[in-house]
């Protein structure tokens, strides 16, 4: 199979994609001495916005020292992530602007766009809030933490799956 054909495949075997993730994570550690993550970058962005608007909370200890308003490693990582996912999806023609996810969502929750947007917004707020409590997100804590054999990552994965399964069960009801 040529390189072009491989790139045109919408999805790769999860084992191959996972190996690429592991290599990227190792490279990040070796070259930049940083672990791959996403939730921290959002907090840095929030800190930048808070300082720019001169808001009171931006001068709290947390946003002054823990998450200072700097263009951090993770913010630049975000730009790279946008480029990477765009390249992958555009090349395989998987790229599409969707208001509502394909099929499964509307079969379960109906065609309402407002419902989808409300749920992804509330879900997103919960995700970032929880990442703040736990000390990282799926990438920063569950993947990067566990690959350093940190118990934090494993405990986080357990919590995530327990409540994820229960929440999905509640949301899907009889369709679960």
């Amino acid at each position: 199979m040529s390189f072009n054909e491989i790139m045109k495949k919408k999805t790769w075997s999860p084992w191959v994609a996972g190996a690429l993730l592991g290599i990227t994570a190792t490279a990040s550690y070796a070259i930049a001495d940083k672990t791959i993550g996403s939730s921290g970058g959002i907090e840095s962005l929030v800190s930048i916005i808070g300082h720019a608007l001169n808001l009171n909370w931006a001068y709290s200890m947390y946003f002054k020292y823990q998450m200072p308003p700097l263009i951090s490693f993770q913010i630049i990582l975000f730009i790279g992530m946008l480029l990477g996912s765009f390249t992958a999806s555009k090349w395989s023609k998987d790229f599409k602007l969707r208001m509502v996810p394909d099929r499964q969502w509307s079969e379960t929750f109906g065609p309402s766009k407002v419902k989808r947007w409300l749920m992804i917004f509330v879900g997103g707020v919960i995700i970032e809030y929880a990442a703040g409590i736990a000390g990282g997100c799926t990438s920063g804590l569950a993947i990067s933490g566990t690959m350093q054999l940190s118990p934090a990552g494993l405990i986080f994965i357990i919590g995530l799956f327990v409540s994820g399964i229960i929440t999905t069960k509640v949301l899907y009801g009889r369709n679960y």
Partner: protein
Amino acid sequence: MAASVIVPLILGFFFAFSLQKAGLGHYDKIVNQFRFKDNTIMKFMMTGISVGLIGIFTLKDIGLLQLDQVPSTYVVGNLIGGLIFGVGMAMAGT
């Protein structure tokens, strides 16, 4: 200066590239893991962790890096954070 911009750009590129190629950009993939209908996330995450584990500890053993980025463990915080996180993940499908 140039390296501190280019390195995270390239790392981010391959990170999101792997996520996209595993299909994690799609709502169904995330939620169907919680419904036990599609094990892609488990396979993807566990392969990533295994490869990274071997890579990081090999480089550590030959002295090319120090394990100085280990996230601190505080059981209650990690667990409660994880429990809340799962709710958001199942709702948003991200």
